[in-house]
């Protein structure tokens, strides 16, 4: 493997960009109406397209595929960032409890919202509020004492997730049958009840998150050999940790708020790309954005088409498809990914 150069990074990202483009086209063609690639491209090329094909492509599939791509990118990027910050290859976007907070917020509305006149449209804002409260809690612990150990941070996340899970079980057992089904779907993670108006918000958090953390990519490489070692190479480790914590948590919060707890993307995509491209975060962070987006769009296409006339939650497909794929790559590359 050669040393990472800007040309090699661009080449790798171009290949991943092409994969994402292919995934987006696949996502747009997948569905019961049998639209071909040609029809879809002509609808996309024509700004004034009307008719059933245009309705299906522009109003139904495109928003879903775009949001799926954004959610996948948010989860994979925050996964790689949490793994780097915590120096723990087993970390995933949900490890610090931000998802637990978001889930609790969302499920509060799903289970009790109808009693106070709140519909499904209130779920994403409530979930995001839950995420913000959790970030504030984490920041109070990690931010006030930036030298807090990663173990303390991880334990806080574990404890908070356990608390949120218990509260969710309590709420779910009080909920009716319909609300219970919605809660179940939301916990597995699904793109079936997305609302198009949230796309811009998720895109904004992804762009902000990437913008804030990509300049830290090289310093995250240095942190792989310990925080103290990174400091001795000129890294402001406290600042790095604060920025990564807030930016990643906001990306996780945005993704979970709109799509529920889609698992596996944030854990497996960074590992998969690390196996293929190496551990350099200057490439791994943007590559994870492309890879996560493509993976979730493909999984969603499978979720929509694998059963005739029925749709599976995409969260079930991410684990079913991602697990064997990852094990195959691990075997093929014969490379150690864990210390």
């Amino acid at each position: 493997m050669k040393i990472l150069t800007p040309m090699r990074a661009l080449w790798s990202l171009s290949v991943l960009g092409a994969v994402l483009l292919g995934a987006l086209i696949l996502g747009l063609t997948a569905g019961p109406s049998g639209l071909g690639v040609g029809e879809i491209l002509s609808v996309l090329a024509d700004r004034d397209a009307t008719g059933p094909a245009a309705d299906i492509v522009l109003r139904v599939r495109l928003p879903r595929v775009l949001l799926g791509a954004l959610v996948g990118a948010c989860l994979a990027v925050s996964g790689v960032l949490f793994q780097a910050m915590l120096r723990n290859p087993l970390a995933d976007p949900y490890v610090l409890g931000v998802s637990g907070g978001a889930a609790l917020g969302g499920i509060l509305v799903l289970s009790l919202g109808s009693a106070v006149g709140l519909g499904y449209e209130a779920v994403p804002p409530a979930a995001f509020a839950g995420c913000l409260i959790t970030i504030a809690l984490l920041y109070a612990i990690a931010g006030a004492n930036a030298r807090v150990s990663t173990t303390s941070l991880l334990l806080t996340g574990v404890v908070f997730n356990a608390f949120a899970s218990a509260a969710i079980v309590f709420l779910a057992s009080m909920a009716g049958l319909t609300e219970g089904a919605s809660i179940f779907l939301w916990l597995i993670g699904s793109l079936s009840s997305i609302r198009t108006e949230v796309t811009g918000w998720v895109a904004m958090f992804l762009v902000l998150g990437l913008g804030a953390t990509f300049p830290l990519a090289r310093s995250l490489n240095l942190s792989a050999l310990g925080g103290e070692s990174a400091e001795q190479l000129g890294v402001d480790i406290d600042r790095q940790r604060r920025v990564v914590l807030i930016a990643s948590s906001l990306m996780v919060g945005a993704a979970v708020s709109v799509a529920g707890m889609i698992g596996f993307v944030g854990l497996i995509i960074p590992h998969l790309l690390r196996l293929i491209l190496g551990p350099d975060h200057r490439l791994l962070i943007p590559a994870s954005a492309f890879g996560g987006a493509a993976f979730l769009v493909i999984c969603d296409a499978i979720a929509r088409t694998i059963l005739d006339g029925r749709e599976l939650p995409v969260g079930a497909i991410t684990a079913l498809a991602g697990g064997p794929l990852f094990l195959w790559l691990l075997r093929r590359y014969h490379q150690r990914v864990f210390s």
Partner: protein
Amino acid sequence: MTDAALCFEDVALKFGEHEILKGVSLEVPEGAVVALAGRNGAGKTTLLRVASRVLRPSAGRVSIRGTPIDEFSRRDLAKELAVVPQDTPVSFPFRVIEVVLMGRSPHLGVLGFESRADVALARDVMARVGIEEFADRSILDLSGGERQLVLIARALTQEPRVLLLDEPTAHLDLAHRVAVLDLVRDFARDGRSALVISHDLALSARASDRLALLAEGRVLDCGRPADVLTPVNLMAAFGIRADVIQAPDGSPLVIPRSAASDAMS
């Protein structure tokens, strides 16, 4: 205040109620290798962590060529001073060449891709340290000794003016110990300086211009190794009886006496 390459003035440090350093004053002159010895827990590693600003002293001051280290930005301090830790945790499978190139980090811009000159420097340093044959191996697959050599190569690639080494030969065989101490001597030859913690008193004495004995958070004695390594100082620093003889090249050799041999004599 002095213009020494690295100067500790009355440096004290407490962890809670526990005083680790109790007023350490020590100079590392330009072009000199200073060895630092003392029993475990004497404060040697803590002193290195204070010098690299990972720990802040509760009193006293550390300066580089007369400028207090607090006046340097983190990045500028890393250009002046490189640290070779005893060992370091590694989380991801970076290749050896990538780890060595991390030493160029303080000299690069924000995203900073390394130039060809940086890569050439890293390869040259790796050849000097003797690790060029495993440039493409994952650092996770190396032994403790090999990993230590990689960290030394990384610090040399950093091109600092002062090198701080914390037991750099702890995991190394005898040949590599000598090679590493020769590297440190070469490093100091062109006006740069090194502060080396080592428990190997014979090699330290041979490789250093000065030797400082640290005991209970204070410098017990500092000077030419032959003057410092005396039975009285060794008793005070390590609590052991020892004979000190002269090697053929004149450097001191410490031969500790066991309790049994003491009883027999």
